[in-house]
């Protein structure tokens, strides 16, 4: 192949590395009103009175809005395909606040200082309610967080929701034999509860949106988002207006990692622009981004596992309790992945069970974060498997090779036909790279520190089965070049580039001849957006289909022009060929641009799939542990990934490296912490520590490519699977170093030294 699997710079790289103004705030008009939001100081309270008269009287203040001024239609801002499996449980502004940081009032002024001065002059009288802060006691707590009527798109018998009991979702699945009988019959069983903390996505560009009315008084929203089409639909519902009056444009995005799969900031300038007719923008501070947006779901996952003495794993039972926070974004779907993207790794099972409860609490709402539940599920299950292996005195590598799912099998849990997998090779190669069999897992160094290794495996999906569907359009311009219209919503990882590579490969043209037009709801075709590891796989296949459609049209057109059978016509190297006769695209474009038989050739292609082919990864951590301080540093991390065909080696490698590093942060220090009344302590980068350069030593990535028949040139996804192995591999290495199993993330030095409380 000429372009797939080859080195290829990101198509936006020169704009990025020369500092071009390509991000949302760079594009906002200088005279845009500055929008600020007053945030609740209480975790759970009723707004009894709100007086904005002094704020409105401030110089430069254009408008002040409270719950009395906004539409009363409840909605969700979770970026999911319609009908969203997230409850419609929020208003733009409500008379009740449900977490510290919840929106109370909106102010728009000429300058930032004026807007901030106005915020200080809004007088609110709150009636405080008892907050629900501990997710383990949220069910049937005397305080009900959503006592209003909440609409769920999922019927009760599917979703199990019961807002009067603070339950956002509750459901379960069983597979194979009876779980209790099978567990009772196992030689060895293990039951453990694991606690995974919330975590902040921490993309470098905070939330921001800019809105204005166009020449036809339509609301235009330029916004830092992963989901432009969902935002259009959801704004229309929340603002009670026709979607035909809304346009959403995604410029370059400064990272998302799932945070921007929820429409956090768009609604505020949108309502200001609608009410005032003036352009408006909001730029979240880092503090707001930490305290008033969304985080990973904190969870408790209880694992029960049973095996025979030889190491064959016969039964797995997972129960996940998920802390949803104040609003139900992504609650049902995230918790589902804790089981769906972990248990099917193992396929010698006779019985499997997965059940889940998602509960509302008076904390920052949880949302999407790379890994989306699979990260939490993987930590729990892989840690349990490692402990089981220790109990059985079987090498963790061997117990995996004995039990993992193989290509061609259908999994007992969740019934997945696995058409591509090189997971066995990932484990083998990773073990070789880290030297797993060449050295003891625990080595005491000369300076008294301890080196130790640990490992884990994982899977994810590629798009959402039976739900995701993307369309691509490619147009042959009369000048012979091509325009590719897609809406995959690249937020930095290089999806746009990969899609151009796929188009160039399919049409056999120079990628420079293809101009990509992305993610503008007025111009580009529907795509759910950038989430669920769908870009290269779902949109990628849509691009391949669109290019094949165009190719057929071009060859038919040329065949008619030459009056020869289409089967004799071939397309390559930017031209159409019939034997030795060559018709370059530019000539075809010219022929088509004039006269009665002219026209513009447009290829369209869509793709959705009944399965979500899992990418796989094996991760191996080599840590250095200091027994004097309890400090752990990952000195070497090996990740071997099966993402199917690697389309762009450099970009795929960086995806894997960055996932491993985010996973190291999650394993060792990233921690969302609350005070006793529900206030968030970790609301800046002083308190919330993400990995810095000195924290990261060696990260080595290799690929074991399978061929996924449903994917573009055999590709699967890579974006999310890469974050999942770090925490369990490090947990296993810490046990090897210290003899101590840790059941809470992050695994901090004090817990490693003195044990968990």
């Amino acid at each position, binding site marked *: 192949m000429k372009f797939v699997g080859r080195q290829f710079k990101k198509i936006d790289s020169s704009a990025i590395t020369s500092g*071009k103004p390509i991000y949302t705030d760079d594009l906002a008009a200088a005279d845009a009103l500055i929008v600020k939001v007053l945030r609740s100081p209480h975790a759970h309270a009723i707004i009894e009175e709100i007086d904005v008269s002094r704020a409105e009287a401030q110089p430069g203040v254009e408008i002040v809005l409270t719950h009395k001024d906004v539409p009363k239609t409840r909605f969700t801002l979770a970026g999911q395909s319609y009908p969203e499996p997230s409850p419609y449980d929020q208003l733009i502004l409500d008379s009740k606040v449900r977490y510290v940081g919840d929106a109370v009032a909106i102010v728009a002024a000429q300058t930032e200082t004026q807007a901030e001065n106005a915020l200080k002059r809004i007088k609110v009288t709150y009636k405080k309610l008892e907050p629900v802060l501990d997710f383990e006691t949220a069910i049937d707590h005397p305080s009900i967080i959503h006592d209003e009527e909440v609409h769920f798109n999922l019927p009760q018998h599917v979703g199990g929701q019961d807002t009067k009991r603070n339950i956002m979702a509750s459901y379960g699945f069983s597979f194979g034999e009876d779980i209790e009988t099978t567990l009772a019959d196992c030689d060895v069983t293990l039951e453990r509860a694991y606690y995974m903390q919330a975590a902040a996505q921490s993309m470098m560009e905070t939330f921001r949106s800019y809105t204005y009315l166009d020449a036809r008084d339509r609301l235009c929203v330029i916004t830092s988002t992963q989901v432009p089409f969902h935002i259009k639909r959801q704004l229309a519902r929340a603002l009670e207006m026709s979607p035909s009056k809304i346009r959403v444009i995604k410029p370059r995005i400064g990272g998302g990692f799932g945070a921007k799969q929820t429409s956090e900031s768009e609604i505020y300038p949108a309502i200001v622009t609608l009410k005032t007719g003036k352009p408006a923008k909001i730029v979240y501070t880092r503090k707001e981004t930490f305290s008033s947006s969304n985080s990973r779901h904190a969870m408790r996952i209880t694992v029960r596992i049973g095996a025979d003495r030889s190491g064959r794993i016969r039964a797995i039972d997972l129960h996940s309790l998920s802390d949803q926070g104040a609003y139900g974004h992504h609650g049902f779907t995230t918790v589902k992945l804790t089981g769906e993207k972990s248990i099917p790794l193992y396929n010698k099972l006779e019985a499997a069970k997965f059940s889940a409860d998602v509960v509302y609490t008076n904390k920052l709402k949880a949302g999407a974060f790379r890994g989306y539940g699979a990260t939490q599920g993987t930590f729990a299950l892989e840690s349990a498997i490692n402990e089981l292996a220790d109990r059985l005195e079987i090498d963790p590598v061997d117990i995996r090779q004995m039990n993992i799912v193989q290509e061609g099998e259908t999994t007992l849990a969740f019934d997945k036909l696995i058409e591509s997998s090189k997971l066995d090779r990932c484990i083998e190669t990773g073990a070789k790279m880290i030297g797993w069999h060449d050295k003891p897992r625990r080595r005491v160094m000369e300076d008294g520190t301890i080196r130790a290794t640990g490992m884990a495996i994982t899977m994810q999906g590629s798009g959402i089965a039976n739900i995701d569907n993307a369309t691509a359009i490619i147009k042959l311009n009369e000048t012979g070049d091509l325009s590719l219209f897609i809406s995959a919503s690249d937020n930095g990882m290089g999806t746009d580039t990969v899609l151009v590579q796929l188009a160039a490969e399919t049409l056999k043209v120079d990628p420079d001849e293809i101009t990509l037009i992305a993610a503008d709801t007025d111009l580009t075709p529907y795509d759910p957006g950038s989430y669920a590891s769908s870009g290269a796989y779902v949109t990628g296949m849509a691009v391949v289909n669109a290019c094949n459609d165009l190719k057929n049209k071009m060859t038919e057109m040329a065949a008619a022009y030459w009056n020869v059978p289409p089967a004799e016509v071939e397309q390559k190297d930017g031209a159409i060929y019939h034997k030795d006769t060559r018709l370059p695209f530019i000539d075809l474009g010219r022929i088509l641009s004039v006269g009665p038989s002219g026209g513009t050739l447009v290829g369209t292609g869509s793709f959705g799939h009944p399965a979500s082919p899992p990418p796989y990864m094996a991760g191996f951590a080599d840590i250095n542990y200091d027994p004097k301080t309890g400090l752990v540093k990952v000195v070497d991390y090996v990740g071997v990934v099966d993402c199917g065909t690697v389309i762009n080696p450099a970009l795929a490698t960086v995806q894997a490296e960055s996932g491993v590093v985010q996973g190291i942060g999650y394993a060792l220090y990233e921690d969302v912490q609350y005070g006793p009344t529900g206030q968030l302590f970790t609301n800046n980068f002083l308190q919330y520590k993400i990995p810095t350069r000195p924290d990261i030593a060696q990260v080595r990535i290799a690929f074991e490519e399978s061929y996924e028949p449903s994917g573009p040139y055999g590709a699967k996804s890579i974006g999310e699977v890469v974050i999942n192995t770090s925490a369990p591999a490090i947990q296993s290495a810490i046990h090897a170093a210290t003899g101590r199993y840790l059941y809470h993330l992050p695994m901090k030095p004090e817990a490693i030294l003195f044990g968990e409380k």
Partner: protein
Amino acid sequence: MITLTVNGKVHQTEVDTNEVLIDTLRRLGYKSVKRGCETANCGLCTVLLDDKAILSCSLLSLRADGKHILTLEGVREEAKLLGGFLAEQGGEQCGYCTPGLMMNTIAMKRELVDPTDEEIAHYLMGNLCRCSGYVSQLRAIRQYLEV
């Protein structure tokens, strides 16, 4: 009224007493300068002030009066070279931290002789990046230091 020389161009501009340099620079059109926090942790706003890397979020514009400032827009040749290495590795990713990282790397190249990987990591510690995991950027920076 203060006088700033930005990328060789002289600007005379009114500033508020509490205005910080990042806001003045962005207002003057130097949009490469980005903000990622309010606590001087992220390094995104790094520019060179009289050839020294500083955080433009932490300097009152009044204190930059009469000084020479370089932003990414003003270092085209070096930016092209370093940017090319970053792009080859895929290490620029979303690009939001890239201008600050590039400015600090350019300052580092002028300051350190043959730095080790550890010295590089420490010099650039204040430049956070969430997309890359840092290792691809280190590969690119190593290449840049060698030319």
